């Protein structure tokens, strides 16, 4: 299982700060698909994904022990 840290809107939608997802060895793109289906997160295209405190692209493969953070841009100011 991979630990996902959720921020802002995603946290409200999931009702928690962290979720565990069985996504080892899969890509970030695949993760987004799973999240859309299982958690009905929307606008996943504009969410920034960090693995171990480093932003990655959709092609990146998620490995055992990785901590994935999902960060939605917010516009306020």
């Amino acid at each position: 299982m991979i630990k996902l840290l959720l921020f802002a809107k995603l946290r409200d939608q999931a009702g928690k700060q962290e979720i565990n997802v069985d996504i080892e060895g899969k890509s970030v793109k695949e993760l987004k698909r799973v999240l859309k289906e299982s958690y009905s997160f929307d606008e996943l295209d504009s969410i920034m994904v960090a693995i171990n405190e480093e932003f990655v692209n959709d092609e990146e493969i998620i490995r055992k022990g990785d901590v994935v953070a999902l960060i939605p841009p917010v516009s306020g100011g």
Partner: protein
Amino acid sequence: MNRYSRQTLFSPIGIDGQEKIRKKHVLIVGMGALGSAIAETLTRAGVGKLTIIDRDYVEESNLQRQLLYSERDAQERVPKAEAAKKRLNEINQDVDVGSIVGEADAQLLESVAPDMDLIMDGTDNFETRFIMNDIAHKFRIPWIFGSCVGSFGSAFTIIPGETPCLQCLMKKLPMNGQTCDTVGIIAPTVQMVTAYQTAEALKILSENNNALRNTYVTFDLWQNQTLSIKADATKNPDCYTCGHHPTYPNLHYEVATKTAVLCGRNTVQIRPSGCSNISIEGLTIQWRKAGYEVSGNPYLVSVLKGDYRMVLFKDGRALIHGTNDVAMAKKVYHSLIG
């Protein structure tokens, strides 16, 4: 001991750094919560010139988090750029403050940018930020992104030719409805974002770029979390803004958000560019949660905000009913969508 003695005692700045700060000209785009706090800090720090831009006037609901403004400014509906300038002059008359009451569109920003040493993000919408991002790269000026809602905020320093740009980071214009008008904001969140932004600003202005953060910082003050995220891998060599063959797409009319006053209908139409990213369902949930009256069908959604009604179509086009004023219409649009 003089006015800046505590700042010159800080050894990475010193007397030399203070002199450098005094010679710099900074542009602040947007004088809401972030912009007003940034302006106050840089004015107190003794920057040479400050140019501030805002299209809006002070309202009662701003006072909870926006520095510089008083109850009287809200009662008299003083334009923010003017109210801010007045207070900044009381704080430090040595700083030359130029105020512009107007829309920070591509044309205005292109006309003022060439003079600037640094651009600070005080805006509340990504449409303007993407324009700022292009402007900063076209004129090779550092700019410091900041944004926040609720207890959640982010900051990132963008140096043309070095760091990834906003386009590299976010790929598409985010329009997810996470605004202060939909999920609220607490003042400490603003202070923390501006602490990150102004610390980076002082490094750039005192020419200590080697001390820059180099990470995207994001935090949640209510949940007690802070992340500092490396962003290098997102830098796209083919990026239209910071890549090898830039076209600065957000400065071109065909990509810009279009507005049109619909004559005789007391309505303004707003049409964002093709690369937007809207989910009517997501926005509807968000607006309902925030207490707005919302109705709709699979093709459009209608939301009531004060005296205005916004009808948003699936393709991103919006009609703002109740005004002929483009600036007011855009304000309503950005306050609901981002």
